[in-house]
């Protein structure tokens, strides 16, 4: 537990000091508990999501960083993207099986930004309605099938 705290502490400081463009940590959310972060995110300029604002919710388990964090979109605006379900779940391999302890909150944010940026057409995933009705609350419980390897 202590090791997770220390690591999160470092990441938080790094993210506050030197955040990637368009990424801000909501400090109020972190003050309550270190294991839940809210990260505000802007759509990258020059992409389909330019000017939009999103919120990401990070939940860290006790085995972090050896176990990936739960990352979902929250808030009023959930991006319409072929890899993002309308309940906020994200289909991104580094959030489940391709996670590596060398990755961090910052690299996850960057991956998501790049995922959004590479979008060519704003639409929901093909199985959105079915998935949203049947899925577990925790996106990590989902057995993801990665349809698209382009991202």
């Amino acid at each position: 537990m202590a090791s997770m705290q220390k690591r999160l502490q470092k990441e938080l400081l790094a993210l506050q000091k030197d955040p990637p463009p368009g990424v801000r940590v909501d400090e109020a959310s972190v003050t309550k508990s270190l294991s839940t972060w809210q990260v505000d995110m802007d759509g990258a300029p020059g992409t389909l999501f330019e000017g939009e604002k999103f919120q990401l919710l990070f939940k860290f388990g006790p085995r972090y960083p050896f176990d990936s964090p739960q990352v979902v979109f929250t808030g009023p605006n959930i991006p319409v993207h072929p890899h993002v379900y309308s309940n906020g779940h994200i289909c991104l391999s580094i959030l489940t099986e391709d996670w590596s302890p060398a990755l961090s909150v910052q690299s996850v944010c960057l991956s998501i930004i790049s995922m959004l940026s590479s979008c060519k057409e704003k639409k929901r995933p093909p199985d959105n309605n079915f998935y949203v009705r049947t899925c577990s609350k925790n996106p990590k419980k989902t057995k993801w099938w990665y349809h698209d390897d382009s991202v």
Partner: protein
Amino acid sequence: MDLSHPALHPRIHCDKVSADGYDITNLVSADLRVRARGFRAEYFIKPPVNVILSFPFHIHIHRIDIDPCVGSNVSLGLQILTHSATSIENWLVDSKPGSTCASLNSTFNPETFNLVGKAFLEERKFLCFKNNRYSPRRPFVGKDFTPGTLDGNAYISNLWQKSPALSRVSHLMVRIVRTQNASIPVLRSVRVYGQPSATCDKEVISLVYQISQSLKSPPNESTTISVQSPPSKEEKVQDTARTLLKGPSEESPGIPLEYLDEITHELMALPMMLPSGHSVDQSTLDKHSQSEEVWGRPPSDPFTGVPYTRSSHPIPNTALKVRIDKFLLQEGKHLGNVGRTVGRRTRSTAHTLATANQNTSHTETAHIQQAPSTSNAVLSSAQVSKCHINISNSASTSNHAPKVSELDTSQCIKDSSGQSENKAKRYSNVHACAETSDLRGPCRKRPKVTQDIQTKCKPYSGSHEEALSQSLDAALARTLGSIPAFKRRRKEPTLGQVAASSLVNEDNNKLHINKGIHGNMTVTAGATGSSCCKCSSPAAQNSCNLLQLPCLHLMCRRCLLQVQQDRVLICTLCQKTFQTGDVVNVHL
């Protein structure tokens, strides 16, 4: 002045049972080490816990400093209560101070105490209760009687202003009402600053003044107290998120970044160098391969995701380990609870190892110089060869290299340290070797090893006293002979051919293992020597780095380059072919 100073013999009592070694009397012990240990209740004790300090005279409280953290346990909720008995026995004046643990009289009950202050901490912090109305009276004025300034991090709470409850106190109760995460109630230190109450007799006041003056005379007294009282500055693991936002200076002050694991940001206990060039702790790698296993993948480099192969896998970063250990030995006391592989007990070993390492070359020359001066060189050589054969026997029967290596390490340490001492000292050292080696050797020594030593020493132990009475030199040579002084043996021309060949092999083995263990390497020696298998020049001589072939034989770089040019990649010893990519560097 510090009224809880052991010189004033305050009595302390706790209404709950305390853990072994963490008795409540630790808090007022005159022994600094015992006092630093603090108080910890037995593990099943839950709050509230009442700790009562009774003073030999009425006191006027100025400030109460409490350090509520022992190890990972923290007492978060504390109340201060005072009691003012009308008549108290003054054991400073009346009789000799007995035990510090007061058996409080039976009439005593917590009801008579007045609550004068309470504090609820949210995290590990030093706690200070202040009486703002305190004003010093003669003769207790001046700098010597004011308590040291507080660390900025301390939690300061004011004592409530009920005049008799603070100015005429005979008993002070610290009540622990809450602990962190339902852990054990603890107190690291309780210091009560103040002065004797105005109602005290003149003689009491003068006596207390005298005691305080005598305490002042050793100049370091006040400093030791101030060293004692500040909170543990090393606190790095802050539990609440609020403190994190304060800034990076808060945690892990002064640990160089390169000593921290890149993944967990903890100090590395066993740094491993990954194929990707990063250094992380072994425990991190274990956890990583565990989580990789969940996905059905082989262990891989966390940074690149490339699975390990025989030629590309994590190797112990011994150089970094040495530096971390050095850093820990120097700064360890300021760091508090950090994982480490050098501890109190192994510290001496580490030192010895370090010196042994530095002195290796020196020892070698010492050996050579020593050889002619030893009058019974032949005798000793005979003894040594016997001893060596013993070792090789045990090696072959146990066929478990680390076991032998541990044994050898301890003896080699012994050997080199013995050599660098003067002669007489060396003798006694060496004599003690057999008994102490299991203490001095690496801490994970097994009983089997001691057995080996004993069996080896048997032939000499009987006649040792006789030999000693006859000639010191002879006895010395004999005892020294029981130690594998392999470096000298190599130079001996008188050695028998058979013994020599087995010896050199054995020696090389040992040198290899010894160094390997020293660097915390887990190299399995197998049948490897530390010399090149082609030009057979040992590593120590040509100072050329060796490389390990897949068959575990070693070859120096020069020969390897030659071999590579000739395009015959065959080990000269076992005739096995190998690839250039499978050759790994060996650091001796």
